[in-house]
C-alpha cells in the first residue's frame, strides 16, 4: 500500500514537471511579442526593450522558466504584463468561480447518470430501458455550448424565468447566484450525464452477468438487493475512471460555457489572456488546469484502493 502510494506520488511529481516544461515551451513559440502587444504597435523599440527587461523577457528561456516555477511554488506568480495587477488574487477568484461550475456540473451528472445507467442496465431488454438508452444517445450528440444556447433561448429569452448570463457571488445575493448558476451547470451536467450513463449501464450489465451475483441470488437475495449489496461496488471501478476523465472534460468544457454565459471564471481568463498575449497569466492558468487534471488522476488511483481491496496488496 505504502509502496504504491509513494510510486503514485512520484508519477504525479514527474508529470507536473513534464507538463510545466511543455506549457512553457508552447508559450515560448507562440507568435507575437508580449512586450510589443502590451505597449501597442506605436511604441518605440526602446520602450519595448525597456519593458522586455522589466518583465525579464530579455533573459534566457531557461532562466525565465525557473523564475516562473519559483513564482508558482512560492504562491507569488507576479504581476500581469497587460493589466499590471497581481495575478495571484485574480487566479484564486477565477478558480473559485470555475470550481462552482465544474462541481455543480459534476454533481448533476452523477445524480442523473448513476440511477439512469443502472436502470438502463437492469431493464436493458425492456422498452423503458431502450427509451432511456436512446435519450442518452441524443445527449452524447449535443455539445455543451449548444445545450447552453438552447437553455438560454428557452428559459431566459423565451420564458424569462432565468437571467441569460452573468455571475454573482453567493455571499452577495444567494438567490441570484443560484438563478445564474442553474443553466451553465445544467449545460455542463446534462451532456456529461449522457456520456456517464452509458458507462454506468455497461459496467452494471457486466456485473449482472457475473457468477457471484447469480450465487447471491441463488442464496435468496432479491435481484435489486443483490445488485446494491454486491454489484455496485464492482461496477464502481470503471465508472470512477470515467468520472476522472470527465472531470478534465468538464474543466475544458467550462472554457466555452463561461464564454456563452459571460462568467468570469478561469476559462474566460485563459481566452482573454491568450488574445492579449498576457503569457504569464496563460502559463499560470494552463498549469493550474494541468495540475487539477493530474491531481484528480492521482486521487482516482487512491479511490481505487478504497473501493477494491484486491489492489491494496503488493506493488502490482
Amino acid at each position, binding site marked *: 500500500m505504502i509502496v504504491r502510494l509513494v510510486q503514485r506520488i512520484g508519477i504525479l511529481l514527474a508529470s507536473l514537471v513534464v507538463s510545466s516544461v511543455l506549457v512553457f515551451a508552447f508559450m515560448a513559440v507562440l507568435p507575437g511579442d508580449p512586450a*510589443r502587444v502590451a*505597449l501597442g504597435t*506605436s511604441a518605440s523599440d526602446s520602450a519595448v526593450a525597456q519593458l522586455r527587461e522589466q518583465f525579464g523577457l530579455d533573459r534566457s528561456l531557461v532562466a525565465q522558466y525557473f523564475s516562473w516555477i519559483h513564482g508558482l511554488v512560492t504562491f507569488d506568480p507576479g504581476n500581469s504584463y497587460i493589466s499590471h495587477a497581481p495575478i495571484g488574487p485574480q487566479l484564486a477568484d477565477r478558480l473559485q468561480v470555475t470550481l462552482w461550475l465544474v462541481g455543480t456540473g459534476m454533481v448533476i451528472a452523477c445524480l442523473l447518470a448513476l440511477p439512469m445507467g443502472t436502470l438502463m442496465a437492469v431493464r436493458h431488454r425492456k422498452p423503458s430501458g431502450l427509451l432511456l438508452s436512446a435519450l442518452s444517445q441524443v445527449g452524447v450528440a449535443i455539445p455543451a455550448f449548444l445545450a447552453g444556447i438552447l437553455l438560454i433561448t428557452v428559459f431566459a429569452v423565451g420564458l424569462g424565468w432565468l437571467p441569460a448570463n452573468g455571475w*454573482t457571488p453567493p455571499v452577495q445575493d444567494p438567490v441570484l447566484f443560484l438563478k445564474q448558476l442553474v443553466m451553465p451547470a445544467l449545460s455542463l451536467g446534462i451532456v456529461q450525464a449522457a456520456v456517464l450513463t452509458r458507462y454506468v449501464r455497461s459496467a452494471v450489465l457486466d456485473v449482472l452477468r457475473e457468477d457471484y451475483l447469480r450465487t447471491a441470488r441463488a442464496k435468496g437475495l432479491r435481484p435489486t438487493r443483490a445488485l446494491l449489496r454486491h454489484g455496485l461496488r464492482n461496477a464502481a471501478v470503471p465508472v470512477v475512471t470515467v468520472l476522472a476523465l470527465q472531470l478534465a472534460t468538464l474543466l475544458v468544457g467550462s472554457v466555452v460555457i463561461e464564454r*456563452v454565459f459571460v462568467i468570469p471564471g478561469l476559462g474566460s*481568463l485563459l481566452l482573454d489572456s491568450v488574445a492579449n498575449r498576457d503569457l504569464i497569466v496563460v502559463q499560470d492558468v494552463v498549469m493550474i488546469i494541468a495540475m487539477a487534471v493530474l491531481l484528480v488522476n492521482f486521487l482516482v488511483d487512491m479511490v481505487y484502493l478504497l473501493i477494491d481491496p484486491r489492489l491494496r496488496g503488493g506493488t502490482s
Partner: protein
Amino acid sequence: MRYLRRPTRGTGAVAATLACLLLASCSAGSTATGGSAGKNSLNIGLTAEPANFDFTKTEGAAIPQALLYNVYETLVKLDQSGKIRPQLATSWSLSKDRRTYTFHLVKNATFSDGARFTAEDAKFSIERVKTDWTLVQKTQMDVVDTVRAVSPTELKVTLKRPSNDWLYRMTTRVGAMFSRTGVSKLATEPVGTGPYVVKNWNRGDSITLARRHGYWARTPHFASVTLKYFKDPTAMNNALLTGTINVIGQMQSPESLYRFQNNSKYKVIEGTTNGEVVLSLNNGSGPMKNPKARQAVRYAIDHKALMDTCWAGRGKLIGSMVPPTDPWYQNLTDQYPYDRDRAKKLVKESGEAGRTLRLRIPTLPYATACGTVVKSQLEQAGFKVKLDQLEFPAAWLTTVFKNADYDMSIIGHVEPRDMQTVFGNKKSYIRYDNPEFRALLAKADQGTREQQITDMRAAARLVSKDAAADWLFLLPNLMVADKDITGLPVNSVSESLDLTGLGRS
C-alpha cells in the same frame, strides 16, 4: 459488512472536505457583479475591455472610452456635433500670431485624491506627454514650445508654430489632466477631476464607476454606472432582453436589430462614428505597390452590396478617410464607382493577375463578415486572393500593423481625425509615401480655418485618387437602450463614452 464501514468513514471525510471547500468558495468571484441595475444605477454593455487604466502607455480605444470625460477631464471637450466646448477651462483666447493659447481655468475643481486642480497641474500634464508617454499620440504635443502657469487659474501655452490641430487634440486623451500627486499607479488607480471614480474592476467582466462626492460641476444622474464587457454579440443582446444590462453601447450584430426595433420596451439609436472600415493596401511592397492594381481593387468593390451583406446595410458610404462630422467632409464615393469591367481591364494592364493577394484580416466581427465578400468581388475582377484570419489583437498587430507582412487587410480606424497618422507617416503599415500629401496636411494645420478646410479636402481627394486604400464604409453608432434612458450620444465623435449626461425619464 467490513467493506461497507471503510467507505462510510471515507465518505464522512469527503463530506467534511466538501463542506469546507463550499464555505471557502462562498465568496467565489467576490469582485464579480451581476443582476440588473437599480433605479440609481445603470449597466452598459460594451465589447472591448481596457487592458489596464493607463492610456499614457497602453494603446487602444477601450481605456479612453471608459475613463475620458468620466474619470479624467480635459481643458476643452468635444460636444455631440464635434464642436470644441469648455470643460476645465472656462474660456480661452488665441494670440494674433496664432501661437499662444491663454486658458482661464475653473477655480473649484479637485482631483479624486483630494488635491486641488490648478494651472500647475495642467502644465505638468501637458509637459508629461512629451516625457513619459510612450504612445504614437504623444507626437501631437511636439508642437508645444513652452507651458507657463501664470496664476492658479491661468495657463499660457506657446506653440512652435500655429497649429489648428493642437486645440482639437486637447479634447482627446493627450489633453487629460493628471494630478501631480496621482500618477504613480495609473494602470490600476486612475486619479482625475471627473464626476466618477473607478469603484471596482472585475477583470474580464466589468468596471464599476461611482459618482464622486464633491465634484466641482453638476453631478451626474446615476450614482453608479457599470460597464459590462461581452465578447459575444448575442450574449450582449440576450443580456438586454433579460434585463441584466440597460444599454447596448456598441451593437456588434446589426442583423439582429429587428429583435429590438419592434419592441416598445427599447429604443434604437443610430448615428455616425469616426470608425472608417478600411481595406488597407500595402503601398510599399508586393502586388499592391502597383498603382494600377490598387485602382483595379477600388473599381472592383461594390460597396453598397458589401455593406448590405456584411453589416446589414447599416453605416455610411464615404469613399475617404473623413467622416461626416469633420468640417472638411466630402462624399468621394464617385471617385472610383463600382465598375467590374474597368477593374478587369486594369488587372490585366497591371500584370498582377497571376499573383496571389494575401488578404490578412483580424478576427473582428466586421472584418470577418466583410473578408469573404471582398475576396469574392476581387476574384470576379480577375485577382487571385488568399484569405487569412489573424488572431486579434496579438497576431494581427505583429504581422500586419508592425511588420507590414500583408498585401491587403480590413480594419476599422476608429481614432478621430486619423488621416495623418495612417497616411501621413510613410512608416505606417500602409506605407503610403506622397510628399505632396504630407505638405497639404502641414499647410492645413498652420493656415486659417478656411485654408484648413480647403487643404484637408484636397489631401483627402489626393489619397483617394492615389488609391492608397479602399474605404469600405463608415461604421454606424448603433445603440439599443431601455426606453426610459435619456442623454445617450447619437454620434460617437470623441474618444469617450460620455456618461455625464445620462439620465432616466
